[in-house]
């Protein structure tokens, strides 16, 4: 039937009206025959092997995880609840298990540039081992170094040096003293040093005695005194040099003692890590640093009586420690990390600080790795929306993927918010595949507005919302139910329950020929049905429990629908379900409340009078109509012009409105109803109020598919049923929507007993024929419609109005011309 309609559209011709019969009850809901299912309960079914209905997405996932090249990160898209994350995670874990375990990631002190810690990538488990070894080393040197300097060996060697220098120094001054003695002089101590004085009989000369000497004797004494003083001065200077030499000798001794002890402790570590050049370099630098700082170590050991306790975060020995950012010990393959809270810090890492006496301090041991580092060598799963909502996280993620390295940089430093001294850890090479999950809108927005996105996320894994409801897939769906039931430790379900769930999945898909793939909804149904079975004391979930669960779920969310229907039934909202009325029809609307949706009738009215061809959409004029609704009104205006104004202007001014609506209206599913109302207004033919109509129209009058067909039918049915089904009531739906029908049992039952009808229409003429009880009328070769038909009456009315307008504009000529045209038409 649809083919013929389309053919007519193609030709741009008027669609001929054909008689419309009510749909057979069998078409109103495609049942799943429980008896046809090849199992008794889900216990008989195997677990689902892999996924179902997601071939496109799983192929994309396989391709994406297999591609090692840059930029082949994945965006897994689909509406929430499709099971994107578990499916993707399952596939990633399966593949990750076959991949090599990536290395541990550690940070160590950079002895050359302390603010730039060095990253070490070590074999799995080695990081923690090295960390433990270095802690033990610190403990050992804190006891070993002081012990070495307290030992007899060191004391003896130090004393040997001291003795040597003391002897040399004493020798210097003894030689001077002896020289002085030979010259009858002696060294006398002064407050600041020495002086040389002449002696006789062991006593220093006084000035009087000196004056008594001959001039020659005095001169000789002075000369000798000068000589001795010069030697004394040389001795003092030599003594200073000896002190410097002594300091060097002692330093060399200290270095030697410290080196021997450190080498002793490091010997085992060097042997253990000799295959790791980076570790060997680190150990070598640690050795040199310990030797250089042996005095500090001795002081610390003396003051603290042991190694730093575990809760001491900042110690002088942190520089010998190892900060294991990522420990792969115990891993069985590549990591698959899901970061639920992808803040900048959780993604990239952070540098913590400790407050000490009002100052913020840090070192490399306070650096923490982020999810990128934990996932390095494997996969990182992130919720795209969460990443985008976290400040700076998205940019940081892109930067890391572009550069293929993780650079732990404090946010406060990036933003110049803090001026504390901080660290710049060396960037860590990154080999990670990021899997973003999100909805399609987000994917397309990112593709459109972020030029980096298509370069970094080249693989889209698009999860299907539903899949074909054929025999194989139905069995697969049953296996999915069985798998989820077992995974979540729920009661087994009998095949009747499974059949109801299959029907419900089709209803959720809004398509009798499809099954919804929303795992989360399905799981909710399973859990809730299980609860009802438990309450009923049943070990097996039966069809009744499923229906109870579904009904209860609807009932919980159904208050607004009840209120709206109550309002109609109390005639607060005027909806007629019997009789006839001109320029008034029952349209159908759907209200979406999260996961819950329901339909209800809405009264659409029209007015028409002579005018310039403009149809006023009151919804749009009052800014309560959406763009698509406005488009629908414009289309029906075009239809009127196309059908009735081929030989004369469209001399019509009309208005359309959804009566008693107080909120926004959108969508074009009421355009068929609006057109019927307008045609009724023009033709003067009353329309049946026991019928409701939904569908959009095109410019040729063909009725097109709409959404929410089940809810709409049920919405009108509920009102009619509440008022008492007359047997004439029913709903007109687009023929293309027949395949979407999954109506409630009570609606189907009413249809079966002839108390309610569903008509499928393909053209506006069929709708008008049904609603007015008058034939729509086919156009003849001259473009005229029979006068006793809907179209004929409309044509005549418009013709009258055209003449009327002409007479108003040109009172004399208009009259004769109008008469001519009328006579021509009649002929």
């Amino acid at each position, binding site marked *: 039937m649809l083919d013929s309609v389309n053919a007519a559209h193609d030709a741009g011709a008027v669609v001929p009206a054909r008689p419309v019969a009510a749909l057979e009850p069998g078409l109103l809901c495609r049942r799943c025959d429980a008896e046809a299912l090849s199992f008794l309960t889900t216990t008989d079914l195997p677990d689902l092997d892999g996924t179902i209905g997601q071939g496109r997405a799983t192929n994309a996932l396989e391709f994406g995880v297999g591609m090692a090249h840059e930029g082949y990160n994945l965006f897994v898209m689909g509406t929430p609840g499709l099971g994107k994350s578990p499916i993707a995670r399952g596939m990633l874990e399966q593949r990750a298990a076959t991949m090599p375990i990536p290395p541990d990631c550690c940070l160590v002190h950079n002895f050359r540039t302390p603010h730039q810690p060095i990253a070490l990538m070590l074999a799995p488990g080695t990081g923690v081992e090295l960390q433990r070894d270095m802690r033990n080393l610190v403990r050992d040197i804190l006891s070993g170094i002081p012990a070495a300097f307290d030992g007899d060996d060191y*004391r003896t060697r*130090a*004393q040997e040096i*001291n*003795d040597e*220098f*003391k002897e040399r*120094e004493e020798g210097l001054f003894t030689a001077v003293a002896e020289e002085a003695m030979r010259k009858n002089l*002696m060294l*006398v*101590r*002064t*407050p*600041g*040093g*020495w*002086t*040389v*004085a*002449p002696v006789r009989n062991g*006593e*220093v*000369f*006084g*000035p009087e005695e*000196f004056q008594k000497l001959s001039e020659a004797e005095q001169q000789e*004494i*002075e000369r000798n*005194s*000068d000589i001795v*003083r010069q030697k*004394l*001065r*040389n001795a*003092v*200077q030599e003594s*200073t040099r000896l*002190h410097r030499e*002594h300091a060097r000798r002692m330093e060399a001794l200290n270095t030697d003692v410290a080196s021997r002890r450190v080498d002793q402790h490091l010997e085992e570590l060097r042997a253990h890590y000799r295959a790791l050049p980076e570790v060997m370099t680190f150990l070598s630098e640690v050795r040199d640093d310990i030797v250089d700082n042996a005095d500090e170590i001795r002081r610390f050991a003396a003051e603290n009586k042991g190694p730093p306790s575990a809760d001491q975060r900042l110690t002088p020995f942190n520089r010998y420690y190892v900060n294991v950012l990522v420990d792969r010990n115990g891993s069985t393959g590549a990591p698959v990390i899901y970061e639920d809270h992808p803040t900048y810090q959780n993604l990239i890492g952070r540098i913590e600080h400790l407050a000490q006496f009002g100052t913020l301090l840090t070192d490399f041991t306070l650096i923490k790795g982020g999810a990128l580092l934990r996932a390095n060598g494997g996969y990182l799963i992130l919720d795209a929306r969460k990443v985008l909502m976290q400040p700076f996280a998205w940019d940081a993620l892109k930067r890391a993927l572009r550069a293929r390295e993780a650079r732990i940089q404090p946010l406060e430093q990036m933003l110049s918010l803090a001026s504390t001294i901080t660290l710049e850890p060396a960037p860590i090479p990154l080999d990670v595949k990021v899997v973003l999950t999100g909805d399609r809108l987000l994917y397309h927005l990112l593709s459109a507005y972020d030029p980096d996105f298509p370069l970094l996320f080249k693989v889209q894994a698009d999860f299907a919302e539903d899949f074909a409801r054929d025999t194989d897939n139905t069995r697969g769906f049953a296996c999915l139910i069985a798998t989820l039931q077992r995974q979540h430790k729920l009661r087994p379900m009998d095949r009747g329950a499974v059949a109801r769930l299959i029907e419900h999945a089709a209803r959720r898909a809004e398509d009798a020929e499809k099954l919804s793939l929303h795992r989360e909804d399905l799981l909710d149904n399973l859990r809730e049905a299980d609860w009802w079975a438990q309450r009923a004391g049943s070990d097996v979930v039966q069809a009744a429990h499923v229906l109870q669960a579904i009904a209860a779920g609807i009932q919980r969310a159904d208050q607004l629908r009840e209120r709206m229907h109550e309002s109609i039934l109390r005639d607060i909202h005027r909806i007629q379900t019997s009789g006839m009325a001109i320029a008034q029809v029952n349209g159908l609307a759907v209200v979406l409340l999260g996961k819950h949706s329901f339909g209800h009738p809405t009264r659409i009215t029209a007015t028409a009078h002579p005018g310039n061809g403009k149809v006023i959409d009151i919804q749009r004029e009052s800014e309560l109509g959406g763009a698509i609704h406005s488009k629908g009104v414009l289309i029906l205006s075009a239809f009127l012009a196309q059908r009735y104004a081929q030989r004369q202007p469209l001399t019509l001014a009309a208005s359309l409105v959804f009566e008693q609506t107080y909120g926004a209206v959108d969508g074009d599913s009421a355009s068929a109803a609006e057109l019927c109302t307008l045609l009724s207004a023009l033709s003067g033919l009353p329309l049946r109020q026991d019928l409701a109509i939904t569908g959009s129209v095109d410019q040729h009058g063909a009725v097109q598919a709409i959404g929410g067909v089940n809810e709409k039918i049920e919405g009108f049915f509920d009102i009619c049923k509440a008022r008492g089904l007359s047997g004439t009531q029913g709903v007109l739906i687009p023929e293309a929507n027949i395949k979407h029908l999954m109506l409630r049992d009570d609606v189907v039952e009413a249809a079966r007993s002839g108390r309610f009808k569903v008509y499928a229409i393909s053209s506006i003429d069929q709708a008008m024929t049904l609603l007015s009880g008058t034939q729509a009328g086919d156009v003849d070769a001259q473009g005229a419609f029979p006068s006793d038909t809907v179209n004929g009456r409309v044509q005549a009315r418009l013709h009258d109005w055209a003449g009327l307008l002409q007479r108003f504009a040109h009172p004399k000529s208009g009259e004769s011309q109008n008469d001519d045209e009328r006579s021509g038409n009649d002929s």
Partner: protein
Amino acid sequence: MTTSAPETTAEPRRVREIVLALETDGRDSPAIPLALSLARHFAAGLVALLVESEALRRAASLPFCVEVRRHSGDERRLDPALLERSLRQALQQLERSLMAPASGLRVDVRRVCSRPLQLLDEHATADIVVFGRSTVSRWLPAERSPIRLETAATDPAHFDEAARALQAHTASAPWERLHWTGDADVLARLRRRRPSLILISRRDIARADGLQQLIEALDEPIVVLP
């Protein structure tokens, strides 16, 4: 400098004064804390003496007297006026250095022109005399044993109370005992042993010039008990 004595209920004392005899370059001598400890232990007064030698006064009066500075080897003309100024400064420094650690003690600081043996005679009533010279040589090891210099007639118990008084300074190494076998021999042995301090009884000093030699030749503090 005199400060009031602390109120004490100590046992009857035999020691009433500690005489600290420092050479003019001994203002930072390790003998100072020893003398302070003894004074506190015995609740005795401390008499700190900066001992000038007559030889130095005479030398400074000579027209060609030049001082060679200890650490730099620099020379400067030394005359009596300059010497006097230097000695006054040395005395002031000694007073300042004793001010805080001697808090609560009766302290008398003054200059004297004398010799060690004269000092012993001059302070006959003084109970303990501590001789100190300049800073201990840097060549000496940090931990050294104190030595009790004894003769055959020495009663070991005679040293016990003083040893207890000096416990804070000798805790890291045990006391050693050395017999006075002759001036030159003792001096040689002491130079080898490098004690942290020498404890000797006045009764055991057989020859006065032997003590004079020790004082002049050794850097270590020498504590002479009554």
